[in-house]
């Protein structure tokens, strides 16, 4: 019950504190995930691939947002679904079944630096593909064998995988249209 208690004063005070802390943390370069740094994950034993480990890209956090606890340690957890007073960049675009889901369907209420499976099991951000796979099992299966998603490296050896969230914004996952490269100059060699 104690998490449910809140007073307006407390909330504002905590907000102020967390903003201060965020500003301090922004200059700190010792984040857990750096862009371009390769993390190793262990695919489950049912993996179709021969390789013990596959390398995946690090989670694509926006600047200064991780670890979440830098701010959330000073906020009282509130499990009630509501309009947030923070994270507008996310709430504005959120359309991942937004009618039925919100933050705490994937993020843990207490352990802010973890994701949370429906079973209650906590998950590191670098294993977010397992979270996506709860609903999109067919895609996860194809991703593991190298058929869904993009990968680079060797066709017969070491590959780098990209996490689901490297291509799909988890809060707005549909692939966005992009600008095409220039069309070819000549007409004479197209197949008709």
């Amino acid at each position, binding site marked *: 019950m104690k998490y449910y208690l809140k007073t307006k004063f407390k909330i504002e005070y905590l907000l102020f504190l967390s903003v201060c802390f965020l500003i301090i943390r922004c200059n700190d370069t010792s984040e857990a995930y750096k862009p371009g740094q390769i993390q190793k994950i262990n695919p489950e034993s049912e993996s*179709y*691939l*021969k390789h013990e480990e596959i390398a995946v890209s690090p989670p694509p956090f926006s600047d200064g947002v991780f670890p979440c606890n830098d701010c959330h340690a000073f906020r009282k957890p509130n499990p009630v679904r509501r309009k947030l007073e923070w994270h507008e960049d996310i709430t504005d675009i959120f359309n991942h079944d937004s009618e039925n889901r919100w933050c705490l369907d994937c993020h843990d209420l207490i352990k802010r630096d973890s994701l949370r499976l429906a079973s209650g099991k906590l998950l590191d951000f670098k294993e977010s593909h397992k979270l996506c796979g709860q609903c999109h099992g067919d895609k996860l299966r*194809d991703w593991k*064998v*190298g*058929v*869904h*998603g*993009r*990968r*680079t*490296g*060797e*066709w*017969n*050896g070491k590959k780098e995988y*990209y996490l689901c969230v490297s*291509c799909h914004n988890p809060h707005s996952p549909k*692939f966005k*249209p*992009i*600008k*095409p*490269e*220039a*069309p*070819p*100059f*000549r*007409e004479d*060699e*197209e*197949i*008709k």
Partner: protein
Amino acid sequence: MKKPVNYSGRRKFLKNLSLFAVGSLALSGCGPVTMKEFLQKNFRTLSKKEKDEIIKDLEKKYTAKYGKEFHVTDEPAADGVEFGYALDLSRCVGCRRCVYACVKENNQSRDPQIHYIQVLQMEKEKGIDFAHSDVHYNPELVPEEGYFYVPVQCQQCRNPQCTEVCPVKATWQEPDGIVVVDYNWCIGCRYCMAACPYGARHFNWGEPTIPADEVNPETHYLGNRPRMKGVVEKCTFCIKRVRNGKYPACVEICPVGARKFGNLLDPESEIRYILANKRVLVLKQELNTQPRFYYFFGV
């Protein structure tokens, strides 16, 4: 006294004369080709020593021309490897990233322009229909509502018509399935272009131009080494990369992961998984070209 006509001598003379004429014609038409290059044999009949010498000469020539240290290899096909390709039609958004990654990797001429990959835009309502496809689409954003995209490049046919018609055997299929061209042996007759049902072969109508700062100096003799005017070229699945274990350039660049590549003889490869588990098709199946390039629906 009238001398008897030495028929065989005269014939020999005429033959030599015409050879000389054809030779000098060819030489004048093909830009800076040395006599040594002109007399070079078909790649497949060269000895190891001859190949090494030719490759060394080429490296020197390209290094001088582009001001960058060039490497040319003749890495042969590996045992137990047959390359296959699969492209996910349900994912391709028609962004043409693959087209230009290919141009860069394979040193295609920028002007006159050569593209190994043509991305065809087709109407969803019509299905795969080459006659009504458009390669010049250019909207602000892709994919466009109501359309899908079919990138076409060399299908590395098991039964290639292009190699069949070549009158001088300048193009052939390698043991790993890649159809290659010996640019030095190609006479530029373009029979192969007429024979290929996929428009996959391209002719250098002019002296190819590649900006020196964009040229790729890591090359293969049968692939991405710079070409000359008057020869035919085509996609080789990035022979330089794939024979070194790497994915082709188009596979790596594709932002939606529509392009898949691997060893058809390895039952655990991505490509075999696709063939076993997805809906797969080949283009112009009725022609019996038996492509190693498959299209599939990943969803």
